[in-house]
């Protein structure tokens, strides 16, 4: 099954809406506590990245019994050097964003740690697409 959520750049007040909706859905589908946790943490980071660094985006969540695949497609400045962005501690967050408690450069590494697959493609000046997959721990 598939769900879609919209994310607005700069809207910190509503950052986390998609992840909290997805959490609710996964709980209702009886996905294990540990899988829910890592998916929600990763999605939250990716969602906040759109809010903090891009203009707007769409989150698509595809749920199957074996995996959860999430695609976050945004229009924004894009990431010029993805390898660099992946490095822990690397951040281009503005002072305003830092003031809100973000911008430690921990988001992408945290996503990588929590998900089984992470693919980022980006075009400078156009936008970024983040694809991430968690294989569910089936008992």
């Amino acid at each position: 099954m598939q769900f879609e959520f919209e994310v607005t750049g700069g809207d910190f007040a509503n950052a986390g809406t998609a992840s909290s909706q997805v959490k609710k859905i996964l709980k209702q589908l009886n996905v294990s506590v540990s899988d829910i946790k890592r998916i929600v943490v990763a999605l939250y980071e990716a969602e906040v990245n759109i809010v903090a660094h891009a203009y707007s985006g769409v989150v698509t969540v595809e749920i199957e019994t074996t995996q959860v695949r999430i695609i976050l497609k945004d229009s924004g400045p894009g990431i010029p050097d993805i390898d660099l962005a992946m490095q822990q501690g690397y951040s281009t967050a503005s002072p305003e964003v830092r003031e809100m408690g973000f911008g430690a450069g921990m988001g992408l590494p945290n996503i990588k740690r929590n998900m089984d697959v992470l693919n980022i493609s980006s075009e400078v000046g156009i936008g970024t697409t983040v694809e991430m997959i968690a294989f569910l721990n089936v008992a």
Partner: protein
Amino acid sequence: MASDQKTSTGFHHALKVKQEVCIGCTHCMTVCPTEAIRVKDGMAVITDERCVDCGMCLRSCPVKAIHVDHDDFNHIFDYKYRIALVPAVLIGQFPEDISVEQIYSVLADIGFTHVYEAEHGVDLLHQTMLEYVKKPIVAKPVISSFCPAIVRLIQVRFPALTENVMLLKPPLDVASLYIKKRLVDEGALDHEIGIFYITPCAAKIAAIKSPVGEDVSAITGVINLDFIFNKIYRTIKATPRGSSFPLPDVSPLTGIAVKWSLTHGEADHIPGRSLAIDEIHNVMDFLEKIENEEISDIDFLELRACDESCAGGVLTTANRFLTVERLNHRASETIRRQTESGLSANNQNEMAPYFGHLLPLIRVDEVQPRGIMQLDKDMAEAMRKMNKRNKVYNALPKVDCGACGAPSCQALAEDIAQEKASFDQCFFIRNRMLTAGKIQLSDSKQILDSIWGNNKLKKLGEGNDPTKENQ
């Protein structure tokens, strides 16, 4: 992974609906934070697996149809040693001109042989907590186990956070273990000891009757605070001043212990980032954020189901803010006296010699998740139900009127997906089916009766038909 699929039945609940009193008004159904209530046959029905015994339903009931099922008071006389274990908020129920001594002596007069405050367990617990929160292996934030409604809320709504619940008994259990041990040391036999907790809420009863993370509680029975309050107050009013009964000997509480059950009572004495949050909706909002890791780096959470914590317990009678005021006075008075006497709190604690004995007993086993959110244990089946629920929900009017006997359109949709309810329970849908000739008027009445009972309108007074003129 398997553990969160375990929904244990047989949990004790202290909140009960009096069928003969309930008018099926839906007030309780709409306020229940876990959507545990439905109206069937004209009466509120509480779903056991969902209820966390917070008591919101009781507060909202306009006809007092929801009550807290406690033990018969006369049960205390089955025991030679009859201990009243009272919460500090009991004292706060009375105006300041009635002294602590007076209240205690009346408890002795009505039949108890010993009176003991549950918060005597605080000093040992506090010391243990200070060690506990320092351990690097415990999941942060440590969530206090003090309020049983919160522990249950976490089990059913936030199963991922069960590992954060502090694995130590609340002060009340610590105190009861101590009393039992001391009386046995003094020669009492186990079966001669009856420890009765005077409870400010339903949640404590549920916790005592089916404890989470431990096998049995050391407490014999539970009596409602409002019941005892009335008994004490009547006796005090009927007793001429100065003729008070002999005072049972008890050591005074420390200042920390006096305020432990109030908001900030715990959090202010745990180092690091310690937060205190009261009222169940506030707690749910916060736990949601903690669960998403939107809020992190918190060391300790004191969470209480009631506004103003136990001062606002459902069985309290006094205004909660006045209770807080009285306990604050009592705490500062205690601290002043202890400072004057130059004794440290622990020197005065009669429990101190027993700390070694009690320490290993105050730990509890892990708190098990018992999630209620899942639509089915099997994920494929759950997905099927979710699709059905979403489809049904889209067709419902989204007015959350409650006329179907469920708290919201969302809840009805879920009940339908779970095959616990039918589409035609919705008034709007039923009307449409009727117009389309899909059901008959008699079918419609039958459905209505199955939700609201067949004498709903009769109950409200016969011959009072507002549709007839000239009345």
